């Protein structure tokens, strides 16, 4: 009775649901002091996006473990400067943890839930989704170098078609009306991507620390290759830099 597509959805969801209770407080690799952190970031989304987030250190962190709750906003600034007025932004909130073992080996994990808003030529889109991010590597005297892997999945997107998009449904039947109309509403599982690459984290000065993720992105789709899809703005690489500022306890 279940289709292959349904089976795939169940697998995806099962992985995420099972991952949730399995997440125990593992410490962020370098953030163990202070009550929380402000993080300002730059990302390669839409060529340049900026983000601002608050990270709250969860009480009970120990010498080799720490976990944080966080919430933030990301805005594609180049689009904003272009004056498109498309009100694009992303809100996310989640839980991050990390652990240091034998004073050298680190693991780091993060779960985000996000909501986006974006108006473009095809309409207004409001996706909701989740992102799982994990890293492992070596802790040097003060910095961390390792590899990361993240899975970004959009659970559903609310689509409101624009006039331009609705125009494509007109005059299909000569002298008549097509039986199909553009559907506004929620569409399921609209995107899934795997990102992977190298992560570097290090205290910079005083209360500040830097985190850099750089790597490749594979959009899980049979219709586009790594480079072919650049035509539709699907770049096969990613860069994310965040500067953390430790707040007073």
């Amino acid at each position, binding site marked *: 009775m279940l289709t292959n597509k349904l089976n795939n959805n169940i697998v995806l969801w099962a992985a995420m649901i099972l991952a949730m209770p399995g997440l125990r407080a593992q410490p962020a690799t370098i953030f163990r002091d202070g009550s929380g952190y402000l993080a300002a970031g730059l990302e390669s989304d839409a060529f340049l996006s900026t983000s601002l987030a608050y990270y709250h250190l969860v009480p009970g962190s120990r010498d080799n473990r720490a976990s944080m709750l966080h919430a933030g906003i990301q805005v594609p600034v180049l689009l904003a400067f272009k004056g*498109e007025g498309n009100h694009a932004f992303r809100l996310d909130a989640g839980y991050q943890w990390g652990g240091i073992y034998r004073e050298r080996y680190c693991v780091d994990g993060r779960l985000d839930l996000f909501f986006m808003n974006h108006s473009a030529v095809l309409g207004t889109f409001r996706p909701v989704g989740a992102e799982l991010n994990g890293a492992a590597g070596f802790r040097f005297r003060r910095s961390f170098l390792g590899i990361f892997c993240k899975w970004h999945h959009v659970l*559903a997107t609310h689509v409101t078609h624009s006039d331009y998009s609705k125009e494509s449904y007109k005059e299909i039947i000569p002298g008549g009306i097509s039986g199909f109309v553009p559907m506004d509403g929620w*569409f399921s599982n609209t995107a899934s991507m795997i990102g992977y690459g190298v992560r570097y984290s290090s205290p910079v000065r005083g209360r500040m620390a830097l985190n850099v993720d750089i790597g490749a992105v594979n959009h899980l789709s049979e219709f*586009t290759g790594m480079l072919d899809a650049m035509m*539709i703005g699907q770049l096969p690489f990613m860069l994310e830099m965040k500067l953390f500022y430790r707040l007073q306890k």
Partner: protein
Amino acid sequence: MNSDLFILLSTTSIRDFFLFIRLDMDNQNNDVQMKFHYMIITAALCFSGIFSCTKTDEPGALVPATVDEDPGLPSIAISVGGHQRLIHYRVFGDSARPVLFIMHGSLSDMRAYLPLQELAERYRVVMWDQRGNGLSERVSKEELSFECMVQEISRVKSHFSPGRQISILGHSWSAVFVARYLAEYPGEVDQAILMEPFGLKDAFMESLDGMLNLGTSGFMNMMYTSSYLTPRDHEILDFRMLATLRSGVRDYFCDCENLPDWPVWRVGGYALLTWESGILEKGRYRYDFTVGMGEFDGEVLLVGSECSPVGYAFQEEFHAGLFRNAAVLRIQNSGHRIITENYPSLINGLKEFLNAYKQAE
């Protein structure tokens, strides 16, 4: 099924929730187990909520349905590459008149070309959405090979003009397919019109630069869209590709700030990606469509615009000499979307070229 499953899961979750609460009220681990159960219930409700959403490949939801999904559309079946496929078509004019094929370019369908039905005063005008494009059936990558695209013209000719020569017009990528058709079936065509084919040989493309403008807000919007709309199916891909017509990424226009209209019902995203990857090898152009083109001894009209990088100057320099009998028509005040940018100049030029108009004078 989606709504039934949603109700079942929701009902089960709520029932379990109340049962669990009652049984564990006195349990010392109540707090932890309650939180765990809340998480399971929330996840189950979200899971069932997802199932009640529309799927992106539901016919007509994101983009208009194709002929295999909408039996109300006019269609014929043709066999190409070993597969029988339905194509969306329209025919204008008296069946006794000579046949003129009009083929749309990439990221398009026949909709923008409908004004050319004016030529039905002298011709039987046949327009169709090529396989994998417009409202025609979507096909596999193998069926979109260049050989298959040429074969498609042959199959359509067999249906509409068996045993008689046709005249044929192709625009952009279709002009390339028409050029190949002339080379492989030189006796089947009376006259051919090629509207701004890109370089028919890789060496011709080396003269072109600056054709892509990635700094447009349209392209940045498309990048941002990539984070939530991944082309997992033809519907999402065609929907996203519709945005490229307004993105200004391809610098083919006289005024990139005010792009000319280009009406479409549905673009063929996968077709364009397949064709473009077919002429590239490790990031460089590697192809030659000119083989055998000298075999065609009929008249060829190359149409080139003033503003497009593959416009008048390009056609005159690189393509006019490939044919035995070619002329170049220059369209002023126009870029690549000639039909919507300067239709009067185009239609007058076509009527001066086409034999049925010349014979009538």
